[in-house]
């Protein structure tokens, strides 16, 4: 395993080289935690007293079980979002001397390939994008769907030991710690890749319930949805010029964040990603209401693999499920 600091150095060197040699005009990476890519940015202010990395937000009184807070018996002590080191944010490096802004650590959550289809980013010129092995799968799908030209893009792969503390659920059974399709890869992996079996535990729990319980679960989850569309905007595969949710002639999906409007939206979002979603989990991460949207996609991914042996973004040679068909497709549910 290569130490993150050393990988950051190599990432910055790579960025500098690519820009200096004119191979690309912009490097899309993570970095500048707490600041933005502004050339004249002053020093960031001194770190604040709270919360520090060493001291997680304690229950407010010393007593065990968190007195000062009314009983919340089933809930483990939740951790405050954004405690500890702020996650590096997406940065767009256009000058070699700004390469210092790039960072690599286990809080590089964002799947940066989402920016490759954005007009404002495309206008910057040929891009290099920094990807983890999981992010990289969206490059395969985007290319299949003619949204990017792989040849006019430079992918810098980062060998990844997982993100988040504790690790994100998706990292548990990660098979793609070492990026497979990047133009160059930074870091070395130790040990064999894990299998994908551990990933689906939460989904298994959900599917073990009765349909009525699942309905109750999602009704409660969707009740918190405010229709901010962060799930859509953050998704590298939600690139439609105008989303069906934004069309009003006719209205296919009610814009209201009501029970009915939210169901219509989440069914649509999940199904428009069926057999396409690469499982980066950005939708769940972005949701300000903490709705585990990725579960829907995972379930569809599971079915896609069972029924068609297809895993989006894993094999560039595999034909996508939709857009194709086979006379042998199962039809035991059709009269």
């Amino acid at each position, binding site marked *: 395993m290569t130490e993150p600091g050393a990988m950051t150095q190599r990432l910055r060197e790579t960025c500098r080289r690519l820009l200096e040699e004119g191979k690309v005009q912009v490097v899309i990476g993570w970095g500048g935690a707490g600041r933005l890519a502004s050339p004249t940015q002053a020093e960031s202010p001194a770190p604040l007293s709270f919360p520090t990395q060493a001291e997680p937000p304690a229950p407010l009184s010393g007593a065990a079980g968190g007195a000062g807070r009314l009983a919340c018996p089933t809930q483990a002590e939740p951790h405050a979002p954004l405690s500890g080191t702020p996650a590096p944010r997406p940065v767009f490096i256009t000058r070699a001397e700004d390469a210092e802004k790039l960072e690599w650590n286990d809080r590089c959550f964002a799947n940066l390939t989402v920016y490759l289809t954005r007009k404002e980013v495309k206008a910057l010129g040929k891009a290099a994008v920094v990807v983890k092995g999981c992010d990289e799968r969206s490059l395969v799908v985007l290319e299949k769907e003619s949204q990017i030209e792989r040849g006019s893009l430079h992918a810098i792969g980062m060998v990844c030991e997982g993100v988040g503390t504790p690790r994100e659920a998706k990292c548990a059974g990660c098979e793609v710690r070492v990026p497979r399709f990047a133009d160059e890869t930074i870091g070395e992996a130790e040990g064999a890749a894990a299998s994908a079996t551990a990933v689906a535990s939460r989904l298994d729990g*959900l*599917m073990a319930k*009765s*349909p*009525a*319980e*699942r*309905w*109750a*679960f*999602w*009704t409660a989850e969707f009740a918190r949805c405010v229709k901010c569309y962060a799930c859509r905007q953050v998704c590298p595969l939600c690139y439609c010029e105008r989303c*069906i949710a934004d069309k009003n002639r006719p209205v*296919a*999906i*009610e814009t*209201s964040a*009501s*029970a*009915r*409007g939210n*169901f*219509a939206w989440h*069914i*649509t979002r*999940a*199904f428009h990603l*069926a*057999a396409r979603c690469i499982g980066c989990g950005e939708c769940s991460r972005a949701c300000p209401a903490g709705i585990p949207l990725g*579960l*829907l996609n995972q*379930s*569809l991914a*599971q*079915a*896609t693999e069972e*029924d*068609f042996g297809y895993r989006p973004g894993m094999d560039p040679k595999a034909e996508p*499920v*939709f*857009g*194709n*068909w*086979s*006379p042998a*497709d*199962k*039809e035991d*549910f*059709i*009269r």
Partner: protein
Amino acid sequence: MTAQFEPKIVAYVCNWCTYLGADLAGTNRLEYPPNVRILRLPCTGRIDFNLIVKAFEMGADAVLVSGCHPGDCHYTAGNYHARRRWMLFRRLLDTLGIETERVHFAWISAAEGKKWQQVIGEITEKTRQMGPYAAYQELSEAAK
């Protein structure tokens, strides 16, 4: 005593096979329950899943999607494409806890007036037993 529950069933059918099959049932005077509302679309390949959702939003108790048998599609492969989508769509409905027994799929050809009669009869009876789709209808109530 309350009146017997009459389910509302929405049938999305393709123009070339099932619609003609339903028509044939009519011209042959094959009686089938009047609970079904037929909406004709060009092809099952055109039947967007949003239409199924919309039907439930508007108060349907069950939905039928029906088109040409495999190999018979007027557009060659529309029904094959549809079949793939339905496979996964059923999984999504199941994951959400939407009652998949309320979403029916069928292949009914232009010659199968009899099958149309049978399928509608079965679906109506089954839905009648299941009762109104209260869970989804409550969503709409909550929306107001």
